[in-house]
């Protein structure tokens, strides 16, 4: 038996180490569809509790939208459940091509290729378009999936300080001799909710002859006046060489992702990106749902406008209550607590008050920057936000952190 008791015990010890270090992830079981009001079983075996969800990536409230569900049903009926093939053998339907064209139009790019997830898009894109003569220069806070993609690529790699344009320029100068240079950033950073300075980055890339890559997973559908993303907000539509994004967040929330950008780069992905070549693409039912999502978002900005108003209301409420927030204007609103245990305690107490919001701490965020990451949705109504604000105030009062500065909170609870 290869999985001997000795081998088993080493894994058991590793799991115990995670538990002892407070790093063990415990899943909560949700007994309802994704929405602002969910029924959660937590801890495991407990009776379900109705809580307000303040931590979903369901930014536009489309995860359970009736029109999207109906379109998905129709897709299931007309195009079936699965493809049982990768794209280049017999796994490409007309609706896959249609979705690629619609995403291209929505993002204002030249071409698009679907991936099973944005994780896969990020894992596959760099290796497909770069080699050892090239360099990738990434913001230090990019998403883990980008880091995996960088690791899989033979090009040299360097980083620049988060959103620090002077440091980026130094790095572009340092690597001036490389054949190709790609600057890599998130559009909206998932943990801090801040926005990349894409206008400045485009200017630097033009100056130093570099390509620009932006992961728009936390932006597509709602950032910018018509929700096209960070590039719209920064006035650089058409100037981003590679965009990756997900359909697993605002754009319906099911699964799937894509690379969208320069025609030749997209074609290189179609020929060489391994997660594309060796995995089934997005299931027809999901493709049909995403097509409906894009139709809804192209017809009206109503949902992203409501999200913007909700975000402003939520941020103002928390600020007036005296919480320390990360600055920004996106629907990711981190409530800073700095201490890891405090973030867990506050999250637990919020749950008792009927609010579902998760604490994040090192190594997910830097040491001493523990927080509750709240995420606002267009599906939140004012009564959701008001109830959540009341709960935050009550719990904040219990821990005596309202009106306190960062230093005062750290003095009370440590880092």
């Amino acid at each position, binding site marked *: 038996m290869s999985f001997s008791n000795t081998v088993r015990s080493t894994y058991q010890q590793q799991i115990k180490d995670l538990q002892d270090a407070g790093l063990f992830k415990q899943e909560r079981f949700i007994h309802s569809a994704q929405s602002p009001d969910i029924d959660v079983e937590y801890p495991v075996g407990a009776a379900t509790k109705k809580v307000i969800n303040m931590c979903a990536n369901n930014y536009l409230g489309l995860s359970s939208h009736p029109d999207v569900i109906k379109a998905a049903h129709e897709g299931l009926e007309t195009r079936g459940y699965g493809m049982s093939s990768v794209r280049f053998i017999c796994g490409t339907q007309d609706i896959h091509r249609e979705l690629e064209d619609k995403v291209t139009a929505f993002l204002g790019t030249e071409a698009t290729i679907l991936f099973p997830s944005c994780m896969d898009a990020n894992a596959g894109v760099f290796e497909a378009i770069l080699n050892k003569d090239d360099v990738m220069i990434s913001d230090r806070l990019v998403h883990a999936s980008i880091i995996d993609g960088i690791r899989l690529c033979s090009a040299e*790699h360097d*980083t620049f*300080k988060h959103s620090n344009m002077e440091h980026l320029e130094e790095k572009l100068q340092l690597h001036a001799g490389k054949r190709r240079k790609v600057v890599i950033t998130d559009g909206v950073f998932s943990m801090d909710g801040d926005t990349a300075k894409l206008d400045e980055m485009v200017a630097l890339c033009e100056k130093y002859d570099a390509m620009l890559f932006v992961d728009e997973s936390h932006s597509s559908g709602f950032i910018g006046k018509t929700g096209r993303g960070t590039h719209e907000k920064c006035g650089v539509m058409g100037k981003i060489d590679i965009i990756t994004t997900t359909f697993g967040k605002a754009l319906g929330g099911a699964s799937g992702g894509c690379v969208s950008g320069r025609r030749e780069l997209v074609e290189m992905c179609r020929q060489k990106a391994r997660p594309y070549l060796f995995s089934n693409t997005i299931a027809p039912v999901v493709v049909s749902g995403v097509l409906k999502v894009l139709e809804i978002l192209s017809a009206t900005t109503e949902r992203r406008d409501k999200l913007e108003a909700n975000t402003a209301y939520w941020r103002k409420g928390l600020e007036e209550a005296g919480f320390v927030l990360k600055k920004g204007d996106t629907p990711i609103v981190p409530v800073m607590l700095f201490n890891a245990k405090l973030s867990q305690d506050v999250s637990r107490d919020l749950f008792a008050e009927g609010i579902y919001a998760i604490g994040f701490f090192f190594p997910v965020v*830097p040491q001493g920057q523990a927080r509750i990451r709240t995420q606002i949705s267009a599906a939140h109504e004012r009564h959701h936000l008001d109830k959540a604000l009341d709960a935050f105030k009550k719990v904040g009062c219990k821990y005596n952190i309202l009106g306190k500065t960062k230093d005062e909170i750290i003095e009370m609870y440590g880092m």
Partner: protein
Amino acid sequence: MDDMTKVVLEYVKAEYLEDEDEDLGVNTPLISGGIVDSFSMVSLKRFLENKYKISIPDDKATPEAFDSVNKIVALVREYVK
């Protein structure tokens, strides 16, 4: 503090500290302390190799060996002739 320690300390401060009011010393834990992520160690290794005209094998450039300025200096000295 000798010259090599000064050079490495200054580089690490300039390259990795985000906040001007942050500070670090020669024994401050860099990687286990979350100041330098293991991914960003690459630029530090390249700096040391270029500056001191050495080649540090990948299996020696571990997060443990890079975890403080003093440890980095000790590692570099092994390869400087």
